[in-house]
Every structure is written in C-alpha cells, then in structure tokens.
C-alpha cells in the first residue's frame, strides 16, 4: 500500500506574553491509503493543534506534511475536517448543506449526489429540513454526508462524537464503520475515548503531554465487527490506558 499521508518531524509553539509554549514537539507519522488511525492523549496535550496543522488550517513552525506525495498547502476538499462542535450551516437546508461542498457539475447532478449521500447516512426524507429541526445525532450524520459527498480521500475527525450522549455516540460509531465499509477513506481520528479508538481504528497512537510527541503505538488486529468485551480488546485497552498513565 502506498502512503496517503506522511508527516515528518512537525513542530509548533505558541508565543504568549513574551514566553514561548511548545505545543507540538517533533511529531512524525505515516498513514497508508485507507488506514484508520486513532490518536489518543490527555486533555490539552495539543491534539487539536496537531490536527489543525495536518488538515492545513495552521502552519507548522518546522517539519513537512506530504499528502499523496505533494507538500500540503492550505486546507482543501481532499481532506475534510469534522470537529466536535460541527460546522453545518444553520441557514441552509439539509440538502443545500451537502450541495455547498460540491463545486462541479450542474444543479441537477449536485442534488443527485447530495441525495445519494443523505440516503447513505440515513437522512432520506429530511432533505428540506433546516438543521435546527434535527437532533444532535442527525446533525453528525449530515456532517458526514457533506464530507463524503466531495469524495475527500481523507477525513480528519476531532472528537466527532463527544457532543453526543453515550447511546447516540455508540450508534454513530457503528454507522461510521458501515459507511467506511462501503467507501473506504483514510481516517485520522482524535479522541479521548480509548474504547472508541479500539472500536474503530486499525492503529492507535498514544501522545505524550505537551509538547506532543508519539509516546506509543498499538496495532488493533481485530476483525470487524469488534467485540469490546473480548479478552484481547480488554487487555489492549489496559495497555493503552497504562501508556496514558492510568491503571
């Protein structure tokens, strides 16, 4: 498999009030095409900053990021970010939100693409609704539909389910796996939920507290659908938690 994403020795620090605060301190990672990598780390360890840099919203102080072998410039539709608070436009209908990301083709074909992906995420029948008429879980589905519709190749997720209650979050994880089984995308997931990472990812990286570096890496060799209560999954969870300083 060829590398989708190559991140080499990325560093970033912020200056505030005269002092410099190193946030990301030499982060390297290679992600294969179609691989699902979860990144877990303690709160405030610079995970979100790291993700913003990888997705192109912020520039690193040093280091390089290659996407499909080319140096990453600003953000573009080849890598869509889905964050905790969501960015569905409340002034557009569900369908208009998905059409928004589509920059090519006529209106008819855009609507057809939008309706297809709305059906994929289970929002058929809500095309004309406004976001404030949807539940939190449905908003997440819409966010996924909008991202998938542009066929991004890579999806960056920054704690995408942490705004949902436990049940809705479990449901959305299952939905995400179902969708990814249909259309394989490379996924980078940031989470503070170790079980979520074990449920979804092919590989789990544990980050050290600030400045962020990779502290440990675990492969998740289990086949889908995964049983989190299995002995192997539980012992993996314990190993990850131990790396996070919990046992």
């Amino acid at each position, binding site marked *: 498999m060829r590398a989708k994403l190559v991140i080499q020795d990325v560093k970033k620090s912020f200056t505030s009030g005269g002092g410099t605060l190193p946030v990301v301190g030499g982060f390297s990672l290679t992600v294969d095409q179609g691989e699902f990598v979860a990144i877990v780390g303690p709160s405030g360890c610079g995970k979100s900053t790291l993700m913003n840099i990888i997705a192109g919203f912020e520039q690193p102080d040093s280091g390089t990021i290659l996407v499909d072998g080319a140096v990453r410039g600003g953000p573009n539709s080849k890598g869509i970010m889905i*964050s905790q608070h969501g960015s569905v*436009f409340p002034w*557009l209908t569900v369908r208009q939100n998905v059409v928004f990301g589509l*920059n090519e083709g006529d209106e008819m074909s855009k609507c057809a693409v939008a309706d297809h992906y709305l059906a994929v995420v289970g929002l058929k029948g809500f095309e004309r609704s*406004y976001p404030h008429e949807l539940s939190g879980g449905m908003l997440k589905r819409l966010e996924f539909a909008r991202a998938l519709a542009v066929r991004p190749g890579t999806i960056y997720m920054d704690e995408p389910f942490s705004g949902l209650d436990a049940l809705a979050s479990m449901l959305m994880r299952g939905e995400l796996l179902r969708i990814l089984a249909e259309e394989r995308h490379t996924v980078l997931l940031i989470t503070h939920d170790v079980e979520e990472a074990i449920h979804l990812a092919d590989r789990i990286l544990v980050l050290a507290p600030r400045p962020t570096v990779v502290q440990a890496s675990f492969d998740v060799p289990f086949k889908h659908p995964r049983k989190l209560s299995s002995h192997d999954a539980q012992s993996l969870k314990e190993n990850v938690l131990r790396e996070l300083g919990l046992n």
Partner: protein
Amino acid sequence: MEKLKQVLCPLSVMALLLAVWSAATPKSESGIFPAPLQVVAGVVELVQDGTLWGHIGASLARVGVGFCMALACAIPLGLWMGRQHIVYVTLNPVMQVFRPISPIAWIPLAILWFGVGNASPVFLIFIAAVFPLILQTAAAVQTIDPRYLRAGANFGVSRGKLLRQVIIPAVLPEIIVGMRISLGVAWLVVVAAEMIALRSGLGYLIMDSRNAGNRYDLVVAAMIIIGLIGLLLDVATRRLERLKSVRWRYRTWQVAGSKVAKESLRDQRRGLVAGLQGEAGR
C-alpha cells in the same frame, strides 16, 4: 387565559389614559388643548378632505428613499469593513465620530446643501440610518463563528460563493436587527425634518396645524398617526425575523445558552479527569 391577559392588560392601560385625558381637558379650561373626541373628529376631517393620505405618503416615500440609499451604502461597506481589518481600522474612528451626532443637528447643513425640497429630509434619513447599519454589519461580520469560515475554506469554495452562502446569511439576522433600529430612527427624523419648510408630510401637518389657527386637535391627531405608523413599520421589519433562513439565530439563543453551560461543565469534568491522570502518572 394567558392570552386574554396579554390583550386585556395593555388595553386597560390605554383606556385609563383616555379616561384621564377626557376628564382632565375640561378641568384645565385651556380652550386650546383638545379632548379625545375632538381629536377623533380631527382625524375624520383629515380623511374626508383627503389631505391625510398625501401627508402619510410623502413621509413614507422620504423614509423609503433615504432608508434604501442607506442600506445600499451600508451593507457593502459594512461587509468590507468586517472582512478587511485595515479598512476597519481606517474607517471606524470616522464612523464613531459621526455616529453620535444627532441627525437633527444636520438640518442647517442639509438646507444649505440641498435647499428645502425633498432632498433635505432624504439626506437626513440617510445620515440617521447609515452609521448604525454600517457598524452593525461590520460587527456582525467580525463575530461570525470561525468554524463556518473554516468549513468554507475546507470545501475550497470560491470567494463569491463564500460571500453569498456563508458570510451574508451568517450576518443577515444582525442586519435585520440593525434595520429595525435604524428604520425607527429614520421615522423619528423624517417628522422632525418635515417641520422645517416643506409643504407635505406628517411633520409639516403638525407645524401647519399649529400655525394655521392653533388647530391642536390636528396636532395631536398627527402625533397619534405618527406613533401608529412607527409601530407598523416595526411590526413589518419584525416579520422579516421569521424568515426560515434567519430563524436559526433568534430561536436558538436560549437553547444555545443551555448547551454552552452543559459544555463548560463537561470541559471542567474533563479537566478534573486529566488532573487525576496527571496524579496517577506521577
């Protein structure tokens, strides 16, 4: 029951005011100040001789032209100031100086520049409406939630599409609030401006009724009509707030408040967990 209360309570206050007014007028023995029934008769007189509609039409037309000119200038300028920091830094101080000058203070200059025709009140309405609209629009653009702008950048949309589908809809609710406020001010100003020298309009009607034989019944009649039209203008702009594409802003305020509270609670909790993890790590 609640609804009945909401109608009955304000109605009873109005009835009380009318009662005090009719009781007090004969006692004051002023001879000039009109009783409520004389005012009603005055309105009937204005309707019958047909002059009322002309005055109302003239005032509304001046407000309409001046206000539309203000909108046409203020919204593009406000968007530009909101998007480009250097434009904001350059123009904001000037705006802040002009804004607190009462439009009434411009009357002498308006007469000097535009004479006593229609152009003067239109100019005054423009002055009254344009500064609050510009500043409201610029502030609204600056406070657009960055996640929406980021989403626009992420999907690689063109500048035109970003403006049409993200920036303008995001600030539209604030612009509508700004329109309500400035239209109210414009209505205040037109009446004052028409008192100067014009031959039509509700402000002229007030001054003319007083000058032409102390017709205070017509003065009070015109005042009440001004109040009612102002109310109607406000109700009309308020209806804009019910448009589906702006309702998200007004109706989620309360919900958003409780959501924010919940989230900050969760952040606190997460901080606590991180603290415990730190302890355990040592």
